[in-house]
């Protein structure tokens, strides 16, 4: 039964509007979008566009932790997120916060115990718990550090620990708010590879990320936010081919910027967004000359 629900997890947001307590403006305004089970979605937008706030509403932190007024609806598997039981919600949605320093419990003395913390709270059997912890620690290259105090880790290691702790919970939907911000380039690639593995497991992934060159290789669609509103929800090539994309303060993949500068489009009329597309396009040109 559990497996079935994993595969059909689906998010539907309708006319979602939210304002933080005492805030003058709405952080989210009339957002409507739906995400199919197993899809990977990128959320982009300038600082303050509402990306993290959208993550908080999806994970139920709004309105449980951050109060304020929610209008419209946000549903997972047809059930309202704001009123779903916390226990159920935790099994469905995992959230990796933007700042790993905020994610770490601070209550645990070792890396190992930190990962165990969430699992203990879910009441996972001991054997399975150990197995899950070993798997994620190895996956994120933290196994050798398992007996260290989390606060002895570097920023990058701490961020990997935050991701590992959430992944160990095996949520159906994983939300990552700038998960690679503190990571070196190889660490970033490792995290994205881990995310693409999740995709093969049918997990729905929502990721806020500024490293577009990496993002576009892994996501099916991108939601572009601006001032709390959803500007466009479409494939990466359509998003970044928008003539007015620069107006939203997000920039674009450097490959797209280069091809726009050179006036080069793909045969389908859109600009390339990824490394491979750009190599194909440019080497084709070189051959013609």
């Amino acid at each position, binding site marked *: 039964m559990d497996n079935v629900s994993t595969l059909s997890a689906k998010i539907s947001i309708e006319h979602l509007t939210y304002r933080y307590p005492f805030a003058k403006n709405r952080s989210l305004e009339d957002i409507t979008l739906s995400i199919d089970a197993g899809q990977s979605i990128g959320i982009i937008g300038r600082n303050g566009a509402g990306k993290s706030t959208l993550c908080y509403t999806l994970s139920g932190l709004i309105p449980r932790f951050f109060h304020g007024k929610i209008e419209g609806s946000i549903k997972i598997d047809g059930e309202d997120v704001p009123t779903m039981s916390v226990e159920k919600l935790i099994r469905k949605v995992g959230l990796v916060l933007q700042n790993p320093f905020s994610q770490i419990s601070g209550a645990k003395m070792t890396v190992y115990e930190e990962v165990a913390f969430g699992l203990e709270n879910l009441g996972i059997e001991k054997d399975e718990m150990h197995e899950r912890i070993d798997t994620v620690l190895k996956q994120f290259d933290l196994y050798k550090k398992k007996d260290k105090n989390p606060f002895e880790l570097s920023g990058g290691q701490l961020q990997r620990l935050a991701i590992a702790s959430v992944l160990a919970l095996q949520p159906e939907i994983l939300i990552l708010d700038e998960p690679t911000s*503190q990571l070196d380039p190889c660490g970033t690639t490792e995290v994205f590879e881990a995310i693409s593995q999740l995709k093969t497991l049918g997990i729905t992934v929502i990721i806020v990320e500024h490293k577009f060159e990496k993002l576009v290789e892994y996501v099916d669609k991108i939601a572009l936010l601006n001032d709390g509103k959803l500007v466009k929800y479409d494939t990466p090539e359509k998003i970044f081919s928008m003539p007015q994309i620069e107006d939203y303060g997000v920039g674009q993949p450097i490959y797209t910027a280069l091809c726009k500068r050179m006036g080069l489009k793909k045969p389908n009329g859109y600009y390339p967004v990824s490394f491979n597309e750009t190599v194909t396009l440019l080497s084709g040109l*070189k051959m013609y000359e």
Partner: protein
Amino acid sequence: MSDAVIKVDGLWFAYKDNEYVLQDINIQFDNRPTAIVGQNGAGKTTFVKVLKGLLKPSKGDVWISGTNTKETTVAQLSKIIGLVFQNPSDQMFKSKVIDEVMFGPQNIWKDKKDKNFVYEQSIKALRIVELDNKLEEHPYDLTLSERKLLCLASVIAMDPKIIILDEPTIAQDRFSTRKLAEIIKELIKDGKVVLTITHDMDFVAENFERTVIFYQGQVLDDGPTEKVLSNEENVATAHLELPNLVRLAKALDFKTTPLTIDDFVEEFSRCKKAGD
């Protein structure tokens, strides 16, 4: 090399007995815009904390504007060298943006009776990072990106000769990153020595004249950015990646190392002409 503002001689550093996280570092820094890159845990942050005098060398010496960090106090050093931490929450504790920025200058210029001077310095710094419209806000009400800029302003307000930025591009969108690049250029034009730790290789390619690669507590490579970032082997050893344009240029067999879109376009059209 006479205008080296920072001189590091045979520096070793260990947090615990004999576990050296920095090993025999010999390097000098002048006013060239310099990026320090390296994988997580390579010793970059430890290194800049030693420069700032927060940590004292286990062996060797660090000279800041001719003063040995062992022979002075952190308070004295903070008049010459400022460090913007990676995590802004590590350096904020006031309840208003303006108070946060004024704290450093107030202490540095304690003897100066002129309160206005400190205020003006602080406003000037906040204007540079474009937070001068948020003076009365609580630092924790700012976004992470703004908090990072606030920390930068707090350091700029003290007007040190040397400014070190530890991962300033974290949590910044592309426009803020561009803005940050402009702030760094302004600071350099103002005669500051700016060292920047970053993982953003495109940011390095576009904005820094010199690049230093740290690897396992040592300097693996150091030189003009174009040269350092074209050495694929070193970059791979250090667990880094080439900047996206350099990677693209390699895939297309360019003979040069384009660091900007302009460089790339120029070289591409040259290639095409040569092929005609």
